[in-house]
């Protein structure tokens, strides 16, 4: 099957039911996408398909019908996305393992709702588990990112 990931086209030969998560991580070597639970309970594996956040652990690779963007495609250390800039400014991460998914979820939220209310943020971000408890900083960073994107 063909997959377009972070702007690059790939031909992969995998079972129809292999989750996109494992195709990305183990077949294509894109390790910014994280495995946390395998049942869409933690959000660590969040990627975009055509700009919309999905849980890649519950998306069969054969069902992907759009362009996939991972954290590695959203921005890079020398070319940061506004959400990543905000995450760095607020020093959100502790262990950092959930933050790829958090950032992808936040970027998707802000693409759809550029000026989210607290309730919007609660609703969009509550599927992403952070075991270290960085939620106060995630909230603040989402708001900063919203300001950055609107100012851009």
């Amino acid at each position, binding site marked *: 099957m063909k997959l377009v990931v972070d702007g690059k086209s790939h031909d992969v030969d995998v079972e129809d039911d292999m989750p996109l*998560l494992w195709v990305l991580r183990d077949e294509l070597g894109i390790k910014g996408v994280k495995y946390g639970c395998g049942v869409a309970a933690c959000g660590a594996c969040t990627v975009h398909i055509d700009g919309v956040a999905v849980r890649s652990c519950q998306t069969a690779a054969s069902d992907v019908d759009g362009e996939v963007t991972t954290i590695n495609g959203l921005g890079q250390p020398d070319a940061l996305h506004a959400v990543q800039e905000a995450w760095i400014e607020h*020093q959100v991460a*502790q*262990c950092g*393992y959930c*933050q790829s998914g958090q950032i992808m979820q936040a970027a998707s939220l802000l693409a759809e709702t550029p000026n989210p209310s607290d309730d919007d*943020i*609660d609703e969009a971000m509550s599927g992403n588990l952070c075991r270290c408890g960085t939620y106060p900083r995630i909230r603040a960073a989402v708001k900063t990112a919203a300001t950055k994107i609107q100012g851009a």
Partner: protein
Amino acid sequence: MASIGKIARRSFLIGSAAVVGGVAFGVYKVKTPYENPLEDELASGATTFNPWVVIDGDKITLIGSHGDKGQGVAHSQATLIAEELDLEFGQFETSFGQPDKAYWNTALADEGVPFPSTDDGFTAETMRGIMGGVVKLMGMQITGGSTTIPDSFDKLRRAGAIARETLKAAAAQKSGINTTALKTEAGHVILPDGTRLSYQELAPIAAALDPVTDVALRDPGQWRLIGKPTQRIDMVAKSTGTQTYGIDLDIPGQVHAAVKVNPRQGGAMKGYDASAATDMRGVSNVVEITGGVGVIADNTWRAIQAVNAIDFDWGEAPYPAEQDQHWEEIGKSFVDDRLDKKWRDDGDTDAALAADTPLNAEYRAPYVAHAPLEPLNATVLVEEDGVTVWAGHQIPRQLQVLVAQITGHEAEQVTFVNQFMGGSFGHRLEFDNIKQATEIANQMRGTPVKLTYSREEDFAHDYPRHIGMARGAGTVKDGKVEAIDLQVAMPSVIESQMGRAQMPVPGPDSQIVAGAWNNPYALPNYRMRGYRVPQLAPVSSWRSVGASANGFFFDSFLDELIHEAGADPMEERIRLMGHETSRKVLEAVAEMSSWGGALGPNKGRGVAFVESFGVPTAEVIEVTNTEDGIRIDKVWVAADVGTVVDPVNFENLVQGGVVFALGHAINSEITYADGMAEQANYWDAEGMRLHQCPEIFVKGLEHGAKVRGIGEPPVPPAAPALANAIFAATGRRIREMPFNKHIDFV
């Protein structure tokens, strides 16, 4: 046997060594105690050298031997060295180094002595000194017990200062100018005329000099980095998906493994049928390991799918199969022959209880999973002449020992490459994943084997926080708390955990009572007894260990008595406090939260104070009793760590500790049925979600004489502060975690 002091002098010398293209500063470990060990050993080549600072070619590397689980110690260890060495962030790389005795944990002994951290008396300090010697001799290199900063604070600054002064001596030799006229700044020695000599160009000269070890540490007023907000060195990588964790490793030639072992922890595997697995795509091998099997495949998902397709016949659990039986065993442990130790007996508690009708209450804390978000994993390569292990772990030297036992190598032949960890909360003090990956790799010598736990395997084979029960009896008199008699019964987590680690710790277990016996209240009558329950399900240290349950027991019961006395919860705690630094913590949290001010309708506030790991910590929580349940609105935290190394990371760790504690207090437990944990994934033990997260206001105080760590201390006061707030808002006293068994939360 030589005295500790003598061995210490001979065995650990700060020195320098030449490395290719430069110099390293650090610690010599000398194997035989010659009169002049440094020179003799250097000459004989029998010395190993363990650096803190390596300057070679164009690179400067700072080594911090404590592992980073997310608490930011890769950054803070480097900060301490860079402070004295005059380096800026961006001018150096960091490394966790190789495991060695030289990196023994100097702060580990503090929690192992039968004196509260607030006792600075001669006997307490002497005992800490003796325990420190024991830890040193055992060369225990452990990341845990919130000890990284206490262990590193002087040691790493001193390493930085020695490197700086030796580089200045090298500059003096090169320039002919006295060292007193030289300065250092941003990786350079500065000559009086402004000429800048880089550390890298001075390194080869420094390597030939005797290191300058007679150094004074800088006065806090001169600090550039310590106490200032800095940007953690891992922040960009962790915000861009470019931080590599153990689970992300791709060692050339590696195969992927998944395991399944008896979900009845420690039970046998009586048989299995792997025929459905061996035919699956990508599966190359099925191997037996202790208590189960491992499947080898060409990617992680295929390995997990295949191991789940195997039919197993599991043996019985070596502990009671049903949760009720665990509680029964605990309930009958409040008896003399299970008394582990009477830890405190101030006043005459029996007389005080006899003088009035005591208030009685019973509290419970459940088993709780660690469940760090990065599932446990390990990559192991076994070869004839040695073993390499890539994983995140908190006890690297013992890891080498246990791996060597499996493969038949010497521990010194085990190379361990510590990885950034996606959380731990204590789970990466355990060795199962390491041992299983080694057992598999030992059957496939020459091939790197990467083992990844499924989330379900991680839950099934967690060693959770121990369960415990407390029974309190107490009295009040004239509007004041008069007596507290608290008895706690728990299995010993230290016995369970350190037994598995083959590092048995003799004597009473302080974790059975930590957080309950050591609070520095000057109560007229204060008795605290710990009862050791025979081992039930195997358990392990969970962020803040004993205090995570005992803080809830003690402070909740104190709050009940204060209510009984009709006193104000804050004022009475402050009145009872017998320790100045702790009193200031309570006063600070009262001021931050404007305690005593008017609250809106259906709101309530609770306060709690717990001292753990030497850090007095007070928290105020405000809740609203809504139609749909309790909403946690705000939390205020004050904690005294002596010196706050980085205020940003400090605030983040305190907020995280509160979220971690509240989430589990609200909704998480592990229960056993048919010998197996009933909870299999985050749906079943969720912790806190963002929409439930309160605003959290943090203040770090610096009155304490010793520098302390902040990883764990914010956890213990959160649950009792919440229970006390719920009582204030609803009149309902909740005496069992998780609270959602008794009340709803929004």
